[in-house]
């Protein structure tokens, strides 16, 4: 990926789409080839993939370009208690701007979606159902194909946050049936500053554009403008060319490994981690107990040690964990904790890393005299 980036800058740094000269054509070709690859990786066509900065820009693009046209006063928007802020705050803002109301699907004790509550809300014909493919705190993998099918029958448009799913398992947006699917490059070995929004073609075509500017227009007159075809309609201005190409390189790497293998490794290490860490005094983890119902992350707390303090102690042992609310404050409130620590496992993690984390937790217990 780093190679792809510096290759881009040193060899064909030039603006895509605009230039006739050779440098411009190479950059355009590489950018569009990357769009092809990334689209195939998540199971869609290139023309349905809009490059964005990341999941947050993706959901906000839907908020502005779909929501402001399609959502009206009194409409119901549905999200869930396990969402990342990027799949909550845009809908709060959309509800405020339009006079719609926002309701949350609650959770069961083991951190899954409350199916009865979801059914009940679907019975009220919501305009939007926004749900994570996999939770960045609980790890829960939701049956998004089933949710999308039910939502469609209820007349709702679906937004699936795939930020935590795309890096960890095979994803096929077309068979899933989501209207919109969002993800971030930096979580899947790609660069920061790039991600994708997949949309159903007919939905993308009906939408308002998002940013106004270069590239997204066909013609600009003094009193109005006409729009370019999708996905270009949503990619105004100079796009993040180098990072889009970098994301293509990351996808090549993951495809070569095989996402089925990545998924098997993920479940195996989660299983080992849950078994191992549960033996540490004061350790409590969140989300499903069954590793096969989870992906990627294991959030936990240790005795009365604040996660922030725990991270500082583990950092000294060379163990990097994230601590805090993980951009999921509503979930934190539901779990009734101010914060949590989170170990993220990926293809480069081995059982030895889990053992090192266990030793680190034991050391923290010593420092805090637990």
């Amino acid at each position: 990926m780093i190679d792809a980036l510096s290759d881009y800058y040193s060899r064909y740094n030039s603006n895509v789409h605009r230039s006739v000269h050779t440098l411009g054509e190479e950059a355009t070709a590489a950018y569009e080839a990357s769009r092809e690859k990334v689209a195939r990786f998540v199971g869609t066509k290139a023309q349905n993939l809009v490059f964005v900065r990341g999941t947050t820009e993706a959901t906000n693009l839907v908020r502005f370009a779909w929501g402001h046209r399609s959502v009206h006063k009194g409409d119901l928007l549905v999200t869930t208690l396990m969402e990342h802020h990027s799949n909550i705050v845009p809908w709060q803002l959309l509800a405020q701007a339009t006079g719609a109301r926002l309701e949350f699907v609650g959770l069961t004790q083991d951190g899954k979606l409350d199916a009865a509550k979801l059914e009940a809300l679907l019975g009220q014909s919501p305009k939007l159902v926004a749900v994570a493919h996999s939770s960045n705190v609980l790890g829960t993998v939701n049956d998004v194909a089933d949710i999308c099918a039910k939502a469609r029958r209820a007349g709702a448009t679906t937004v699936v946050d795939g930020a935590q799913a795309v890096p960890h398992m095979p994803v096929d947006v077309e068979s899933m049936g989501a209207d919109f699917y969002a993800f971030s490059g930096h979580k899947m070995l790609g660069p920061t500053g790039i991600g994708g929004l997949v949309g159903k073609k007919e939905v993308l075509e009906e939408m308002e554009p998002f940013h106004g500017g270069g590239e997204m227009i066909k013609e600009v007159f003094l009193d109005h403008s006409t729009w370019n075809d999708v996905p270009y309609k949503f990619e105004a201005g100079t796009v993040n060319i180098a990072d889009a190409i970098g994301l293509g390189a990351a996808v090549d790497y993951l495809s070569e490994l095989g996402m089925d293998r990545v998924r098997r490794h993920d479940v195996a290490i989660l299983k080992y981690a849950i078994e191992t860490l549960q033996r540490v005094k004061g350790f409590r983890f969140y989300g499903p107990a069954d590793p096969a119902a989870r992906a990627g992350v294991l959030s936990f707390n240790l005795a009365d040690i604040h996660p922030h303090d725990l991270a500082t102690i583990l950092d000294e042992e060379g163990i990097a964990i994230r601590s805090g609310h993980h951009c999921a404050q509503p979930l934190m409130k539901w779990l009734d904790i101010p914060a949590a620590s989170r170990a993220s496992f990926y293809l480069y993690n081995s059982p030895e890393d889990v053992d090192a984390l266990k030793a680190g937790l034991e050391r923290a217990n010593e420092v805090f005299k637990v």
Partner: protein
Amino acid sequence: MSTADIYKELILDYYRNPRNFGTLQTFDIEAHDTNPLCGDEVDIQIKVGEGHKIEDIRFSGKGCAISQASASMLTELAKGKPLEWVKELSKEDIFKLLGTSDLGPSRVKCALLGMKVLKTGVYGYLGSGAEGTEPAGPS
């Protein structure tokens, strides 16, 4: 082939003296499109005659030598052909007209603009939509 070879006598001649340039008094088909990259524009009008034949055809537009010459050449080729013939038309036919296929991705769009407009118009007239044409691609 040298790039400058693209601008052979032939293309230059069609660029400076376009055949079938202008508009028709009466026509049955009209279509228009632009290539947002360079602002090339092509507009085609067709008068449909006996047996769904292209009785008369005119194009107008502005843009680079390649887009205007290829549109002009295409109108010459199309005149007298049945509308169904337009469905068979492929980019190779255009390259043959121009005498080159060595254009590079963004100039190819210029070369194919006339064909895109012709297909859009004829498919619309035949009531079958223009899904079969090359996608427009980025601007």
